């Protein structure tokens, strides 16, 4: 067998590829992240807000972009495409075509001087063609890598040999018109495909008149809503006026077999609801309407979000699918004609703007890539995977995640991405750390005893700063400040040669503090800190003054004031840097074992995934048997029996030498934190572990009090499954009732799995006996994504679907079910019934509160565990080292549980795979002499870093036991909440001490360099 290569190639730099990259890189594997466009970020970078929390999409994404950019184990290959893949699992040769950008990435500083001079205007892809960009461009302001690229197709020099403006103005000589596409071969052990989707192009559906300027796609509407979009977030019609009424049309390019796209796109109902809500927040006069077939609010918090939109925001949800958009031939006015639910009437209503909720469609590049990789595709053009191996393709060593597999939303994509990372990590576990190089630095000089000797670099940023701020004047001023021994001007402080100059200046002037006055610390601080380290200076003896965003950009019309402000900003930084202390990270040994609570399909997958990577794993299950909820069901949606996946999984868990299984056991006590947990089991055994995964699952609700449950012939879906397997269903007329005990005041959430389960069982009943009459009484059919095919099949087989509403529920009588069918003009039907099957929601099992308390992690109002961030951290808790997966987080299907299980394992292994835990230098410390043990710090800390420990205080007069705060350096993030909260001032937030902050404030107040003494 060929040698294993400890590197992974990830194709596609959207949120999926980013997450896979970060997990693998954090686990010590080398990552090549290949992205076909000039920047990573994908579609998520184009979104305005995200459902259901209305978080800003870019605000949550851009820290991840920056993290990728500066991760030492990630090599970014932007503007590149995979040309071929050869080899086998563990050892692949991937040939990547690096497309010519015509800009040297090492020289370009993205100063944007070239932008102003480029005469060629092109439709901007980032804004979906709603605005123009230049032929040389930065895809979007937060782009990573932050370098310009020339669009060869539209560059006047490259197409006609004229112009050359960008080369003329570039002061760093970064433009290279001679650059050619080139192929590069990278050696990797595994490949992850995550090239995502493209939005469906609605042009062929002529009836929706996409050519009308005020008929827009949902992704165009995202750009209209976005503050960084073409109209700065003011939604406008083509004529510049503000729309008063906007309609969304759902399922454009989805659930439409006519055009070969029969499936549901899974995300459109929620994004349309979000777009309507955000648009109404922008303009409270706006009226909105969403035309839908079913509202598929199936994810965590989605149903509540939908209800809020409907009831509080008054977004109108109209259950009708207009056959087209009408345009008045004279006035060009848009209108929609639709059936009025519950009547025979049709209505015609005018709208100012119509948003087409376009579906997710496999991108051409994804199809091409799948062919290159040789992986099997399904009939819809998605990469084919199985329910029990949702990230595994037909080619060993090649994995897939995100929307290349099926339409899915961001959290499911992120979970998938971590899951795929786990799979790649498992086959390369032995090669961890082999291809990552640690940077070496010269020995650090001790500056603690020295007087501050400060050097200041004032950056022109090309003309970004220098055209507004009088930089030479600022340099002269800075030289007069206390402790400043050297100050100079630099065209681009961040270019490679400038960084070398900074090192030289540190040597030459024996500097022990450095200030760079340039741009934002968000992108540039780590770079300059690293430069300081390279010159033997502690990286914390550095300060960045932002005179670009805060001075030059916001005050460009007032250059004199901008110059004054720049002086003040630098004066404040100089005052602070003089007081900074060198800080050191600590490396701590820790326990590398993993713990998984819950022995269902989720817990077992998580345990196997951790164990495969070589770590000791404890699997704790309360019941006496492994298998969990899936044991109560008999068939999967793909027709296989559940035992077909459960039996081999249980066998694998039991036979894995790294896994210790404790069934019939509970975890009763936990103490410690990430890296050093200690737990006590109900059998008295004590275990130690570094990380834990909570996979405690869910149970089917017992629908006592709903739809006649308890009387004869009224059963739940799980009971039906058992009867089906036994062949004991003796009924000609079967009625299924959806949402039995769900989507109500007691359980306001949607249980996600019930529609798919009901449709699956309806098909089984019908296939069992085609003469059977099956009625499914529902509120919305939520067979999202590819499971729409089951819904279609059920209807083809003759299963009847009848819609009811929550305020007019079906009544289960003796041998009959009565329903008022909303789709048939409120007609009342009495259905003769032999068997009534209730689709009851999944609910959290008993005892979740205890588990939550053990690990100090939160649960939501429905008793599902609450993840750290609903979009981007679906399997993380805010508490370090503790993760969650499966139905413990919210109800979900088996493949989704498995994806999350692998994801949680991947996340846990990013910790377990480290040799030692490295603490941050910036953290809080407690002065025990001052601490009174009040515990306020433990209450405010979002990460559970402080704990109260008992200490014995010995004084001359008395010896007593008291409590003192102790902050775990492995967990502390240095946010300073505890320091601000501490009533006695016992806690100091390092790098942001009261003294350091006061100095900055004083420097702002007093121009003469005076510093008021503070306690």
């Amino acid at each position, binding site marked *: 067998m060929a040698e294993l290569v400890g590197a992974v190639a990830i194709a596609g730099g959207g949120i999926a590829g980013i997450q896979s990259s970060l997990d693998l890189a954090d686990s010590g594997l080398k990552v090549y992240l290949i992205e076909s466009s000039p920047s990573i970020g994908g579609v998520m970078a184009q979104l305005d807000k995200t459902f259901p929390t209305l978080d800003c999409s870019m605000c949550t994404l851009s820290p991840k972009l920056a993290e990728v950019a500066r991760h030492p184990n990630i090599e970014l290959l932007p503007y590149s495409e995979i040309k071929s893949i050869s080899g086998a699992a563990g050892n692949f040769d991937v040939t990547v075509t690096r497309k010519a950008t015509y800009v040297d990435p090492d020289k370009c500083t993205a100063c944007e001087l070239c932008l102003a001079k480029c005469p060629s205007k092109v439709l901007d892809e980032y804004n979906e063609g709603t605005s123009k960009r230049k032929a040389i461009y930065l895809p979007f302001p937060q782009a990573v890598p932050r370098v310009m690229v020339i669009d060869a197709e539209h560059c006047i020099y490259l197409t006609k040999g004229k112009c050359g403006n960008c080369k003329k103005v570039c002061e760093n000589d970064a433009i290279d018109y001679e650059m050619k596409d080139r192929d590069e071969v990278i050696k990797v052990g595994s490949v992850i495909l995550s090239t995502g989707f493209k939005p469906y192009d609605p042009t062929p559906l*002529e*009836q929706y008149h996409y050519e009308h300027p005020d008929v827009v796609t949902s992704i165009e509407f995202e750009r209209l809503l976005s503050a960084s979009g073409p109209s700065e977030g003011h939604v406008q019609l083509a004529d510049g006026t503000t729309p008063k009424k906007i309609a969304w049309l759902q399922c454009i390019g989805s659930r439409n077999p006519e055009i070969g796209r029969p499936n549901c796109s899974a995300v459109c109902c929620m994004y349309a609801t979000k777009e309507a809500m955000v648009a109404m927040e922008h303009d409270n006069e706006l009226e909105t309407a969403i035309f839908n077939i079913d509202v598929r609010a199936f994810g965590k918090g989605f149903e509540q979000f939908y209800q809020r939109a409907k009831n509080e925001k008054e977004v109108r949800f109209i259950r009708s699918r207009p056959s087209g958009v*009408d345009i008045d*031939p004279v006035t060009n006015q848009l209108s929609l004609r639709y059936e009025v639910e519950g009547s025979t009437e049709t209505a015609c209503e005018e709208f100012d703007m119509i948003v087409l909720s376009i579906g997710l469609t496999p991108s051409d590049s994804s199809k091409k890539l799948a062919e290159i990789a040789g992986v099997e595709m399904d009939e819809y053009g998605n990469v084919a995977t199985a329910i029990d191996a949702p990230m595994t393709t037909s080619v060993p060593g090649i994995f897939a995640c995100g929307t290349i597999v099926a339409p899915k939303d961001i959290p499911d994509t992120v979970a998938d991405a971590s899951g795929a990372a786990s799979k790649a990590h498992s086959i390369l576990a032995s090669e961890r750390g082999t291809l990552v190089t640690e940077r070496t630095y010269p020995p650090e000089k001790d500056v603690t005893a020295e007087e501050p000797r400060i050097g200041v670099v004032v950056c022109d940023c090309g003309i970004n700063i220098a055209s507004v701020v009088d930089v030479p004047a600022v340099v002269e001023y800075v030289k007069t400040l206390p402790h400043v021994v050297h100050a100079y001007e630099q065209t681009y402080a961040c270019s490679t040669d400038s960084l070398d100059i900074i090192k030289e200046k540190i040597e030459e002037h024996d500097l022990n503090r450095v200030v760079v006055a340039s741009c934002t610390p968000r992108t540039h601080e780590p770079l300059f800190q690293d430069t300081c380290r390279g010159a033997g200076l502690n990286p914390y003896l550095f300060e960045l003054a932002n005179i670009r965003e805060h001075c030059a950009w916001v005050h460009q019309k007032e250059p004199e004031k901008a110059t004054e402000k720049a002086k003040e900003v630098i004066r404040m930084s100089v005052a602070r840097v003089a007081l900074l202390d060198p800080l050191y990270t600590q490396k701590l040994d820790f326990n590398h074992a993993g713990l998984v609570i819950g022995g269902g399909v989720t817990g077992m997958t998580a345990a196997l995934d951790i164990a495969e990577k070589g770590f000791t794993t404890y699997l704790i299950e309360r019941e006496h048997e492994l298998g969990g909820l899936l044991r109560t069901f008999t068939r999967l949606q793909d027709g296989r029996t559940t035992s077909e996946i459960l039996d081999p999984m249980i066998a694998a868990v039991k036979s894995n030498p790294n896994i210790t299984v404790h069934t019939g056991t509970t975890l009763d006590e936990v103490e410690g934190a990430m890296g050093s947990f200690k737990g006590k089991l109900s059998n008295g055994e004590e275990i130690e572990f570094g990380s834990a995964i909570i996979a405690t699952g869910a149970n089917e609700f017992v629908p006592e009090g709903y739809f006649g449950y308890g009387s004869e012939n009224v059963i739940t879906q799980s009971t039906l499954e058992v009867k089906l397997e036994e062949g004991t269903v003796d009924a000609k007329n079967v009625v299924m009732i959806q949402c039995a005990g769900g989507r109500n005041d007691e359980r306001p959430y949607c249980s996600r799995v019930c529609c798919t389960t009901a449709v699956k069982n309806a098909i089984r009943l019908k296939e069992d006996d085609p003469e059977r009459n099956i009625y499914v009484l529902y509120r919305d059919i939520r067979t999202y994504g590819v499971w729409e095919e089951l819904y279609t099949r059920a209807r083809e087989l003759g299963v009847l679907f009848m819609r009811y509403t929550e305020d007019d529920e079906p009544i289960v009588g003796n041998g009959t079910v009565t329903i008022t069918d909303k789709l048939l003009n409120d007609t009342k039907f009495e259905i003769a019934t032999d068997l009534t099957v209730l689709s009851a929601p999944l609910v959290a099992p008993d005892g979740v509160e205890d588990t939550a308390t053990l690990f100090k992690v939160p649960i939501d109002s429905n008793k599902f565990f609450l993840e750290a961030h609903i979009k981007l951290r679906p399997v993380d808790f805010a508490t370090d080292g503790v993760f969650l997966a499966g139905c413990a987080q919210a109800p979900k299907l088996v493949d989704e549980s498995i994806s999350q299980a692998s994801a949680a394992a991947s996340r846990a292994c990013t910790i377990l795979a480290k040799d030692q835990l490295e603490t941050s230098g910036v953290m809080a410390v407690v002065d025990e002499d001052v601490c009174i043990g009040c515990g306020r710090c433990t209450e405010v800390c979002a990460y559970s870093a402080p704990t109260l420990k008992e200490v014995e205080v010995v004084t001359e007069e008395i010896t007593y036991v008291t409590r003192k705060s102790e902050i775990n350096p492995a967990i502390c993030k240095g946010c300073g909440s505890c320091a601000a909260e501490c009533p006695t001032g016992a806690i100091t937030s390092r790098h942001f001490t009261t003294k350091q902050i006061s100095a900055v404030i004083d420097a702002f107040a007093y121009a003469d360099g005076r510093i008021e003494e503070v306690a």
Partner: protein
Amino acid sequence: MSELSFFLGCIAPNRYPGIEKATKIVMEDLGVHLRELKGASCCPAPGVFRSFDKLTWLALASRNVVLSEEMGVDLLTVCNGCFGSLVDANNVLKEDLELRKEVNKVLAEVGREFKGTIRVRHIMEYLYDDVGVEKVKESIKYPVDLKVAVHYGCHLIKPSKERHLGSIENPTFFDELVEATGAESVMYKDKNACCGAGGGVRTSALETALKLARAKLENAKAAGVDCIVDACPFCHLQMDVGQTEIAKKFGDVFNMPIVHYSQLLGLGMGYTPQELGIDMNYVKNDDFIAKIEKIGGGK
């Protein structure tokens, strides 16, 4: 001279014989001889029969097609409904050999067999594809100076993926043929909307059907046209007879003349409204008759 069999359908010969006559004379002038399709039955109506029993529909429709097969010529209809029924049946049976076997079992009882040897043609698509707009233009002796609202009708253009007649939403072939006569096709609101007759709606829910027709008439009237031009006797009946029913039911009087395309073409060729049966409509609009009598300077 080309030859086609002429499938009359039910409404044209029984209610609007002018359409039948106009078609015969204009096609003859364009060099297309229409032969009688002896023994033809009802198409049958696509909305009704096809919706209830596929095999019955196919058997009845294919029998009509077989009659033309036996004559060895393509079949022409002047009715969207007949076209929808016959062309769909013909296509289905040409492609689905299993189904053809089933249908032929039924046809065998009357001594016939579907072989799939001919095409079913609608006068509009035949004129556009086979005769050509240019040739139609050449046949015009007296440009028809009218502003007209073109009504395509549903079965002519839908299901669009099987009709292959260009844009679903903005078809132009009918308009081009209308403008070839010298008339102006005026854009009006909801031009492609249904007349309201088909799908059994006129029979089962007359009021709903009339509401749809009324909207059609209102929109055409608002566009200031002289008449509505259709290519289907059932649409024709719905919009013509329908006007008398609308007047009775809702009190709206439109007085809108309804003209079949073969009649419009006949005017341009120099035939009188009487020869073309345009005066046989239920809606009596003497001003319109007077106006079209003057086409070509009264000849």
